[in-house]
Every structure is written in structure tokens, then in C-alpha cells.
């Protein structure tokens, strides 16, 4: 009999299960799964920058928010007759007299979707270029991105009349003329999310296997050596950060579609750093680990935080400390041959029969 690659088979099974999920799980579970898959697109971006390029960003929420808000602005304008002076509800409440200029282009769906990808992508690339060209990296970069997340979320909250303030943008019903509140629409949005996750996965897999990926890892492991060998590491890192920004934006837009709301509570300092823990738990160097970690941590959060809210924060804190201290390769590391985690697991497994024999 032909020998099958277990990796290939499990991959095919997961893709089939994912595609059939709307018929397997309940509607509520499907909506959760869709949300978390949207988040996992962002997590793959963190895996690219943190795991492969060694750039820790504590501000991915900013790019997530840019994508989410770009789409939400379009959703708010759908069905409104802007030429007639119609405005989104929250602007009417805050007493704005006319729709602000920068909202106008978001009447176009194509423009908004382009913004979902390009605004966070280009902003991330530009911002990181300013840092990396002056060789600011490591801890400094992490702290500055955290300050960015803080500034972005406070700005969103304070500009109530332009951004919906603390409540964010919510309460939308149609996209491209289709009703997005029905259960069929939820299924379609899930499939769109799922397909984008699969595309992003294979795109990153290809990218990391290319020469670009090799250069990225070389930069992570010895930036000065890369320089001594005559390469400029800056473009590699900027491109990686830009791609991660664009992925975060796409994830933000899809998450907004699933949850029906985008608000500053999703983009600030704490949510941004939570995003990193998904990848830390899943495995920062392994692409599927980023997805698995996102799903695992978020489903756990959904279960625990509603029942015992204070327990969840202790758990999250402990998760940070334990994952980073004892499982630097994450859960995915348990399955990677040769990693420290895998050796530990093998030892546990091989010891067990010995103990029962005694």
C-alpha cells in the first residue's frame, strides 16, 4: 500500500471539516468560529513578524482597527442618501451638521475594501520604515507600538462625532445591497472568512519558503551579520510588517462583519497584547500554530470569561507567564520533531508504559 503523508491527510481533513462547518456545528458556534478565524488571519501576521522576523509588535490592534473601521464606515453609509444630507445615526446624535469630508469616499464599496487592505498595510509599512531605518528594534519597537495602540484608541474615543466614540460603529444591516443579518448571510460570511484564512495560510507558507523567508529569518537571528554580508535588512522587515498590517486589517474587517460592531475596546493596549498571547500559546514559528492558538485561547476565553470573569484575567496572566517561560515554541512545538517541547512530550509518552509495567 502507498504510504500517506500524515501532514497532508490531516490538512485535507481540516479543510473539508472547515468548509462543512455550517452543517456540523450550531449557528452560535459557527458565528464564534467565524470571528475567531477572522482573528487568526491577524495572528498569522504576528507569526510572520514576531516568529520569523523577530519584531514584536504590541500594536496590532491599530491595524486591526483601521481595517475594521474602514469597512464599518462603508456599512454605516450603505442605504443612506448622502447627497440628500443623510448622516450616520451617531453623527446626528452628536449634533454634526454635515458629513465630514473623509467619510465621503467610503460610499463606494470597492474603495472601502481597498482601504481595508491598503490603509493598514501602508501605514504599518511606513511606520515601521521610520523605525527600522534608524535601527530601532526589539524592546524599543515593542514599546513604541504599544504607545501607538494607546494613542489610537484614545483618539477614537475622544473624536466622538467622527468615529462614534466609545461605542464605536455598530448597527448595520446591508453590504452591497445584501442583507447581512440572516443566517444564510452568516454562512456566506463564514465561508468568505474561511477561504481567506486558507489563502493567507498558503500565501505565507509560500512566502516563508522562498528566499525572502530565508532572509527574514537570517535578519532575525543576526541582523548585523546580514549587514556584514552586504544585504540591507530594512526592506525585508518593512515588507513583513506591512503584510502583517494588511492581514490585521483584513481580519479586522471580517471580524466587524461577523460581530456587527467595531469599537475602541477591540483595538487598544490590552487587546493588542492579547493578540500576541494567541500566537505565543499556539507557536510563534509555526503557521498552523498561530491559527490553532487563536482558536484555542478565544474559545477558552468565551467559556471561562462569561462564567468567571476574574478567573479569566488570572488565567490570561498565567498563560502569558507559562507559555513564554516553558513553551517558547507553543503548542505546535509539541508536534515539531526535534524541538524541546517535542522531546519533553516524547519522554512523557515513552515513560508511561514503563510506569504501568512497574
Amino acid at each position: 500500500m502507498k504510504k500517506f503523508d500524515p501532514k497532508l491527510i490531516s490538512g485535507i481533513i481540516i479543510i473539508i471539516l472547515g468548509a462543512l462547518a455550517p452543517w456540523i456545528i450550531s449557528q452560535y458556534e459557527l458565528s464564534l468560529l467565524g470571528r475567531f478565524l477572522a482573528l487568526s488571519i491577524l495572528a498569522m501576521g504576528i507569526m510572520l513578524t514576531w516568529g520569523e522576523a523577530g519584531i514584536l509588535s504590541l500594536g496590532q490592534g491599530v491595524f486591526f482597527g483601521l481595517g475594521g473601521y474602514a469597512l464599518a464606515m462603508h456599512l454605516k453609509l450603505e442605504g443612506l442618501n448622502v447627497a440628500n444630507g443623510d448622516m450616520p445615526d451617531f453623527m446626528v446624535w452628536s449634533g454634526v451638521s454635515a458629513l465630514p469630508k473623509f467619510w465621503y469616499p467610503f460610499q463606494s464599496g470597492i474603495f472601502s475594501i481597498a482601504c481595508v487592505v491598503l490603509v493598514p498595510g501602508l501605514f504599518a509599512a511606513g511606520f515601521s520604515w521610520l523605525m527600522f531605518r534608524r535601527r530601532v528594534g526589539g524592546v524599543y519597537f515593542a514599546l513604541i507600538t504599544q504607545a501607538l495602540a494607546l494613542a489610537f484608541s484614545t483618539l477614537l474615543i475622544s473624536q466622538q462625532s467622527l468615529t462614534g466614540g466609545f461605542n464605536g460603529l455598530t448597527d448595520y444591516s446591508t453590504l452591497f445591497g445584501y442583507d447581512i443579518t440572516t443566517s444564510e448571510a452568516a454562512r456566506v460570511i463564514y465561508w468568505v472568512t474561511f477561504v481567506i484564512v486558507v489563502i493567507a495560510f498558503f500565501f505565507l507558507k509560500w512566502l516563508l519558503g522562498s528566499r525572502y523567508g530565508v532572509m527574514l529569518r537570517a535578519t532575525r537571528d543576526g541582523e548585523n551579520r546580514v549587514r556584514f554580508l552586504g544585504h540591507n535588512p530594512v526592506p525585508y522587515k518593512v515588507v513583513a510588517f506591512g503584510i502583517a498590517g494588511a492581514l490585521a486589517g483584513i481580519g479586522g474587517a471580517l471580524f466587524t462583519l461577523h460581530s456587527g460592531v467595531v469599537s475602541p475596546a477591540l483595538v487598544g493596549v490590552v487587546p493588542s497584547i492579547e493578540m500576541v498571547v494567541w500566537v505565543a500559546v499556539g507557536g510563534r514559528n509555526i503557521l498552523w500554530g498561530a491559527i490553532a492558538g487563536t482558536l484555542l485561547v478565544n474559545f477558552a476565553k468565551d467559556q471561562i470569561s462569561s462564567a468567571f470573569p476574574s478567573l479569566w484575567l488570572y488565567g490570561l496572566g498565567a498563560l502569558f507567564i507559562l507559555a513564554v517561560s516553558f513553551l517558547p515554541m507553543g503548542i505546535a512545538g509539541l508536534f515539531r520533531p526535534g524541538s524541546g517541547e517535542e522531546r519533553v512530550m516524547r519522554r512523557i509518552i515513552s515513560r508511561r508504559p514503563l510506569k504501568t509495567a512497574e
Partner: protein
Amino acid sequence: MGESAFLVGQIFNGFSVASLFVLAALGLALSFGLMRVINMAHGEMLMLGGYLAYMTLQVVPGPLGIIVAMPVAFLGAALIGALLEWSVIHRLSARPLDTLLATWGVSLVLQQAARNLFGAIGVEVTAPSWLNHVVQLHTGPLEGLTLPDTRLFILVVAGIVLAGIALILNKTRLGLYVRAVNQDRSTAAAMGVNARLIDLMVFSLGTGVAGLAGVILALLGPVTPTVGQSYIVPAFLVVILGGLGSLVGTTIASLIVGLFTALIEIFVDVSVAQVLLLVFVIVFIQFRPQGVITVRTRALEG
């Protein structure tokens, strides 16, 4: 109130905010210089200091309570800091980014513990009566200028702490060791300096100072579980601006951040001021990525 009095008042506010930043950032900067790690739970040392002040005032009410609270907060925070360094940070110090994440976990746990112990709303520490006055000018070009006593008190405390740390760093044997490890860890270790112990002592000194700052913070507003978070991000920016482990650099950077924030808030609201501060830091980095003061070193980073 005249224009110039208002401006001088804002500058004075800038100085008093700066003195809080310097107390909050000092420990971060010194430990960062030694170990290249940032303790994300540093803000919770401020919080801890605030709650210790609250508890001390329950035991020792009266005008001198706050004087007693300061050493209590210093020692309490220093002790927790030493525990944190010994249990988490030094084990991870070869991986600075992982230290960042692990200490963030510690900060979450400490915040939640405070929430469970003291409640989410926060506790009030009333300033003693001898700090309840304002210095007010009634004549002269600065007529109408008011300087609250608490703000003056902050300046005095920050000045004393800075002078004390400067003395320790420059005049004692411990300070000599700290500077040696800061410049070249392996050579210092080869000369018989116990670099591990220096790390531990500097770290707990830094958290102690943050605890002290927490007492002052408690005089300005209620102590909440997240009180440290509002000061810690500017403190991180101070560390970035200040340069590696330099006392002078940290002080200058605190003044820059404090004055910049106070003066820009004349023209824009607080949230825009925050954005402009970040823009300022990014622009500053374009010209001096190594910070205000650079400790000369021949080591190649990374």
C-alpha cells in the same frame, strides 16, 4: 489670570508631571541599562505603592501618616520587585521580548488581585492638612498664579530621590559596581563583581522608587487597580528618549515629555496631545535613535 501667569502655571505643571515620570521611569531605565529587559509590571508597582499608602493611613492616621507611608511603600514595592526579578525576569533575561510578555502577564495578575482585594472603583487617600494649601501670587507680573502644595511636594520628593540615587551611583562602591556592569557585564564579572546580585539590587531599588511614586500618585487622585497603566506608557517613552541606563538622560527625557505634554495641552485636548507626543518621539528617534544621553560602549548590539 494673566497670559504669562497661565503659561508659567503650565510650565510648573509640566515640571511636576515630569517629576512623576522620572520616579516611574528611573527603575525601568536602570534595569534596562543593566539587563536590556523592560518590566511591564512596573506600572503595578506604582499601584502597589498607592495601596500601601492607603493601608498605612488606616493604621497611622494623622498628619504624619504620609511620611510613614513613603518608606513602607518603598520597602513593600522593593520586596515584590526582588521577588519578581528572582522568579521571572532573571530566568528570561536572555530573551528580552519574552520577558516583556511574561511581565505583562504578571501585571494582569497583580491588577486583578488588586481588583479582588480593594474593589474596582478605587480608594481615596486624603492629603494631610499641611499639604492642603496653595501658594498664590497676588501681585507682580505673575498675578493669579496658583501652585498647589501637593505639586510642590512632588517636586521636592523627586529632587531628593534623584539626588539620593545620584549619590549611590556616583559615590558608593555599589554604584561603582552598577556602572561597571552597565558598561561591560562580562569584564565586570571577571573582575569579581557579582553581576547577578547587582541586577537584583538595582531592580528592586527601581521598583521601590516606583512604589514611592505611587504614594505621591495617591495624593493626586484615587488609587485604582489600573492607576499604573496611565503613567507607564509615558514612562516607557521616557526610557526610549533617555538612552540606556543613564540617570541624567532619564531626567532630561522626563522633563521633555512632561513639558511637551503640559505645553501642548494649552492648544489641543489630551488625546490629541498623546498622539502628538508619540509623533514627537518618532521624529526625535529619526535624529537621535540612541536617546538623549549615550553611554559609550564598543559592544555591537544584536
